[in-house]
């Protein structure tokens, strides 16, 4: 369970995040959406303890992320940011093995190897395991980093704009994979998404933010309505429906 309590982040006089309360619990995909600078990535990175809040706390399974030992947290929450997807000279398998570091401290057990193999299978990366990251395409590299997160095997998975730089096919594949993390592995997934339609189609819950505050929170059908979209994105849009989910025609101005 991720429990956000009166969380504030300020840079000088500018408040970039002001979130009195938010609870995310159980298996499922929660999407954070909003315009640029809405504070969604800030919220995610604080929850992943990569950024210190100005005040307030985030509890993960009751552990305060600012004070709990980092190694303990590494077994409960995994965060992947787009900037960290690097073209280093490591093989895919080596990278995924790092996902087991919180448990093995570098000395992998049979169980660790099993989980690494499972993560490689899940991401359909088995044939790429011996290949080096600097020789792969951006989409494949991205999948390798997600595989490392899967190998880390935490109940909570935080993904910051995982679809950036992916073409249509790889974006669709990644979202299907993110769905599987929740459906097949029972993870609590929180994902920052740029595209409201991707969120509406794949997420169980959408948290919409503007100017550092949460302005709407609910199922896609509850959140993706014309009045809320105007509120969140400052744009009047038509909304239609596909397979019972809302679709925003944001390109029809």
């Amino acid at each position, binding site marked *: 369970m991720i429990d956000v309590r009166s969380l504030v982040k300020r840079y000088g006089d500018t408040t970039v995040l002001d979130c009195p309360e938010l609870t995310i619990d159980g298996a499922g995909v929660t999407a954070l959406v909003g315009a640029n600078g809405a504070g969604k990535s800030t919220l995610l990175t604080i929850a992943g303890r*990569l950024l210190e809040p100005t005040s307030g706390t985030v509890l993960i399974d009751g552990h305060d992320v600012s004070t709990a030992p980092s*190694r303990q947290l590494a077994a409960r929450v995994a965060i992947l940011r787009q900037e960290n997807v690097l073209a*280093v*000279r490591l093989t895919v398998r*080596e990278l995924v093995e790092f996902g087991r*570091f*919180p448990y093995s401290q570098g000395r992998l057990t049979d169980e660790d190897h099993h989980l690494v193999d499972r993560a490689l299978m899940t991401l359909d990366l088995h044939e790429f395991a011996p290949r080096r990251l600097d020789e792969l395409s951006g989409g494949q590299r991205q999948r390798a980093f997600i595989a490392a997160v899967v190998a880390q095997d935490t109940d909570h998975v935080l993904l910051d704009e995982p679809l950036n730089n992916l073409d249509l096919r790889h974006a669709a594949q990644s979202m299907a994979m993110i769905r599987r993390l929740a459906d097949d592995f029972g993870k609590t997934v929180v994902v920052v998404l740029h595209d409201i339609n991707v969120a509406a189609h794949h997420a169980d819950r959408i948290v919409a933010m503007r100017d550092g505050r949460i302005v709407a929170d609910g199922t896609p059908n509850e959140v993706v309505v014309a009045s809320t979209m105007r509120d969140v994105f400052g744009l009047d849009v038509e909304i239609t429906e596909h397979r019972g989910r809302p679709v925003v025609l944001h390109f029809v101005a």
Partner: protein
Amino acid sequence: MLRGDDLALDLLTTSRIPRTIAIILAGSAMAVAGLTMQTLTRNRFVAPDTAGTLDAATLGLVLGALYVPSAPIYLRMVITVLFALAGTGLFLVLLQRLQFRDIVVVPLMGLMLGAVFNAASVFLAYRAGLLQTLVTWISGDFSGTLRGRYELLYIVAALTILTYWFAERFTIAGMGREFAVNLGLDHSRTVLIGMGLVASSSAVVVVVVGEIPLLGLVVPNIVTLAFGDRLRRVLPIAAISGAILLLLADIGSRTVRHPYEIPVGVILGVVGGCAFLGLLLRTRGRVG
């Protein structure tokens, strides 16, 4: 000799064996130092040469020689190590403040820092009339490596083994702060430990044999190109390659102007410089 030629045996144990051991230890240490620095700073052009570490160590050596000339060598070694640590620390502080951490700007900053240390060394040596002595100190040279004068290098062997023990952590730290924190690793502490080990072992090498240029820059670049960035695997390869390269350079330094010796640093400067130019041209556009 096998028939009991005492002179030959004496030569072997007093000079030849110590010299070979010293070369192996110093060569592997400098290659491992460069590899570790490159990994931790995420910059393939950062090595003890280009981070101000060697120049800071030399400054410590000069100060020790000038102000506590009668101190035993281990005390002067401690001074040198402290200076190397301080110089490398200053490099890290400056790196923190650098807005634009470009692949070229970072080592350039290190070189400038090193130039400041070097100027201080030259000034002190000049005032003391030791300019020529300074040159012999700075240029790495094994001609004076005899039994009783190289044993401090065993400290370097210990530090290199310790670096290997941390290898997996250093690789993870080299993936960036956020990647490391996500895996529960204390990033700043890991970087400090790594840079501390590197600065200490390069300083001991400076004390015993002088500066060994470019080896720490060239060897890691070549071995990671072929064997990847995972320190646990590539560190032993770098250590062996560094030892072999320095052995070859030493043979060169003794044969080029036989029966005289030229400092091994001069040979490495030429060979390493050319190799580095080749690497630059080869990897242009995909470094980092």
